[in-house]
């Protein structure tokens, strides 16, 4: 990334240049990590699978709900994607297995999504808002496996949302459902200064970016 005209040079800083191949895959201001850092605002919830379910909601109406075995019986889709956290790390070629948003709509008997936005909600009270246009056509999944094994609680298990083209706080951990909403409104981090949409390629980290 080229410096702003005004950016002062930090004397003696050289930095670590990326290969051109990597530069194409890593959004501005990000660096590649081989770790899988964990970031969350509170303790990790541990929901037993017998008590777990996933729902699609609209207002107080439950459009569809799946128990863990029912969810596992839905079509499982593997994906390999790059992920980008607003705290600056990116991780390339991460492998997940889950159920696409399209599969959920179909299984719920919804030919078209009822509204243009959703609020994802999770165990522990976390929420995040997303446009439906960013979930359809294979762009989003509810994943239950990472790197071939069941998703660990620290990384959002038993199930997390995966929307890899947006900053990773949008990929809600411990997700339990999506509520269709008519108008976009801020979720947890979006109420605390983070961007409503969160496109890493436009560096939409914070409100106003």
């Amino acid at each position, binding site marked *: 990334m080229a410096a702003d005209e005004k*950016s002062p*040079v930090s004397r003696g*800083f050289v930095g670590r240049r990326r290969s051109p191949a990597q530069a194409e895959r890593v959004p501005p201001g990000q*660096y590649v990590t081989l770790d899988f850092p964990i970031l969350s605002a509170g303790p*990790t919830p541990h929901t037993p699978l017998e008590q777990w379910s996933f729902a699609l909601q609209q207002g107080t109406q439950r459009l569809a709900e799946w128990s863990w075995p029912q969810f596992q019986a839905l079509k499982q889709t593997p994906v390999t994607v790059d992920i980008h956290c607003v*705290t*600056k790390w990116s991780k390339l070629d991460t492998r997940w297995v889950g159920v696409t948003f399209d599969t959920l709509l179909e299984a719920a008997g919804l030919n078209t999504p009822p509204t243009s936005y959703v609020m994802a909600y999770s165990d522990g009270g976390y929420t995040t808002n997303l446009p439906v246009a960013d979930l359809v056509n294979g762009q989003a999944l509810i994943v239950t496996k990472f790197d071939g094994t069941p998703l660990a609680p620290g990384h959002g298990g038993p199930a997390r949302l995966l929307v890899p083209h947006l900053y990773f706080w949008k990929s809600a951990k411990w997700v339990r459902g999506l509520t269709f909403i008519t108008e976009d409104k801020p979720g947890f981090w979006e109420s605390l*200064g983070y961007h409503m949409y969160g496109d890493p390629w436009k560096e939409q*980290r914070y409100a106003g970016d």
Partner: protein
Amino acid sequence: MRVPRLPWRTAEIVAVRNETAHARSLALRVEGWPGHAAGQHVDVRLTAADGYQAQRSYSISSAPAAAELELLVDYVPDGEVSPYLTHEARVGDRFELRGPIGGYFIWTAAYGGPLLLVAGGSGIAPLASILAYRAAAAPGIATHLLYSARTAEDIIFKERLEAWKEDPALAVSVTLTRNVAADWSGYRGRIDAAMLHEVAFAASKSPLAYVCGPTAMVEHVADALVSIGYPAGRVRTERFGPTGEST
């Protein structure tokens, strides 16, 4: 809601202080700094002579009212930005920063107490900001700091810890996890439910807990607090990645 973009501001290093063999405090003068809440962090951006830039996040360790903004930087082996800030940067050098950032891992007097602060390693930084703010704004709020460091040499903010021990409403406990000397009078070993049961406020007092440190430590402490009855909603966490920097 239209919010103005957080601008990049130029920061000039006005003082450096080595806290341990690998952690350093940087005192900064920042043009137009808007102020911060205790517990927040900033994004730092370094620019090389050819225009190459790199960004990382660092916690603010100074009080909101302090004249200079202070950051704590812990050296990450094989890192890109922290080795520069801990070894190369000196007084008079400039870089950019943006912030303050983070609206959840903050404490203001209105939140009340009692307040339990649990830090691991360089996770002491945002809690030092909270303690400095509390001393000025709400010194009467009962507070307990539990700080875990690897060895006695790894204790960050030694002088501040001594000063905090003089505060009658603030209890300070330090635990060491490695190479503990025979005459060490603090706790030994990693923080666990038994240690928290002994030193933390009882859940019945509705304490508010802030836990900051390496991922595994924070996971462990947050789980332990829940196990001794703290509601999850009263435990705020900030985790540092396993290393966070590689490749």
